[in-house]
């Protein structure tokens, strides 16, 4: 169901009942970029959970899917930096 964006934000904040703020990603170059972008659509534990079995190509495919299929508003240069971080910190 499609809803107006404002309502969406309200719903979104109401749905965050559990404590996703407790999720801490590993330090490293690009971490802030990852946090700022990925958290638009999902909690950051998705990254932890899907590690450490993806190689660089695997993370590239995941980030590509988020941008091209899921429509995440992430620029090409940010996407590249995100892949760099994920491959270095959460890669195989």
């Amino acid at each position, binding site marked *: *169901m*499609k*809803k107006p*964006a404002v309502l*969406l934000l309200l*719903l*979104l904040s*109401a*749905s*965050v*009942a*559990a*404590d*996703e703020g*407790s*999720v*801490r990603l590993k330090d490293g170059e690009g971490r802030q970029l990852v946090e700022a972008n990925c958290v*638009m*659509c*999902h*909690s950051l*534990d*998705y*990254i*932890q*959970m*899907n*590690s*450490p*079995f*993806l190689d660089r190509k*695997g993370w590239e495919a*995941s980030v590509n899917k988020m941008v091209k*299929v*899921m*429509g*995440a*508003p992430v620029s090409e240069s940010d996407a590249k930096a995100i892949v760099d971080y994920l491959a270095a910190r*959460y890669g195989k």
Partner: protein
Amino acid sequence: MRERRDFLKASAGAVLLAQGLRWNPVAAAAELAAAQGLPGGAVEAALLEALPGKLPLIKKSFRPPNFETPVRFFNEAYTPNNAFFVRYHLSAIPQVDLQAWKLDIGGEALEKPLSLGMADLLRDFEVVELAAVCMCSGNRRGFSQPHVPGVQWGHGAIGNAKWRGVRLRDLLARAGLKKEAVEIVFDAADAPPVEKTPDFVKSLPVWRAMDENTLVAFEMNGEPLPHWNGFPARLVVPGWTATYWMKHLTSVSAVSQPYKGFWMNPAYRIPKGKFPVIDRFVSQETEANTPITEMVVNSLISTPENEGKCAAGATLDVSGVAWDGGYGITAVEISEDGGSTWRNAQLGADLGRYAWRQWSHGFKPARAGRHTLLVRAFNRAGATQPAELIFNPAGYHNNVVQRVDIEVA
């Protein structure tokens, strides 16, 4: 890391205390140990956390919420509502107001569109109840070798419940389903976090939507559906994986062309010919793959838990559940020697063709040390479970024979 875990364990403990139960760190460790074989990062990130109205479950992701049921709850024939697993794709999840809720029945392949509230459903249609297993297509994905991306589920994206509601076919008949209908399309109240994300929309072939067992359910185990399991109404498609069991259902559309959407294709696809499934979804098939449909035959040891301990000389209760796509479980076999020999377990009561079947077996270990127990089920369609995983890129239909190691001292 330690601090965070202690904090979260403490918060789960507070919930238990509030419910008059004791927080037991040993039991909690055992619940999380069932995660053995999951990716390291998934084990690390898992914790026991309670969503509002739920007991502490194994948290896979906070947003969207994905929480799995600890294995010990599968010792019960019916999985308690407050322990039932939670699975969402999209993170904008409204609290649906029952007074305002309507189910719209429409689409070009219907004579007359309807808009029904809960009172209409209860007044105008026969209410029926059936027991059925609700299982995420990706249950046990986390054990896939090699690992594949997605929610890294262990054993607990499954539950058995009594579902009460009205037959979808009665609603479609009332609206006058036309002959040209090919699929029935379902949408729900949850929505994507950003505009461009594909909305979660699913379809069923008409024959499956018209099956007398396909329900629009509003009760689960005698109570209104919990919010996290689809209040106020969800689709129940017994025998098929839970991707079709649309929660917070708001719209049903009959269409004359196959529905095209991300969640039908490329999502939720299995390679053609790799699994022994009988139900087909022909209008959605391609050369290479096909939508997932019925559950494959499968079983679970719920007692003892993996890495459990038992005293030498005693008879150990080995028990669990077995299920399939609705053909019926005919036998469950246990191996006490890692798969060389097998013997029949005792089957429990038949709760209906779509419910799981409980089973039990007394194991009297002849020696101390490490023992490996295996379980496999057989169904009326002549299928059983493979000794080797049938690998597929999305990690669906994981029904490889389960193994539980115990230490006899």
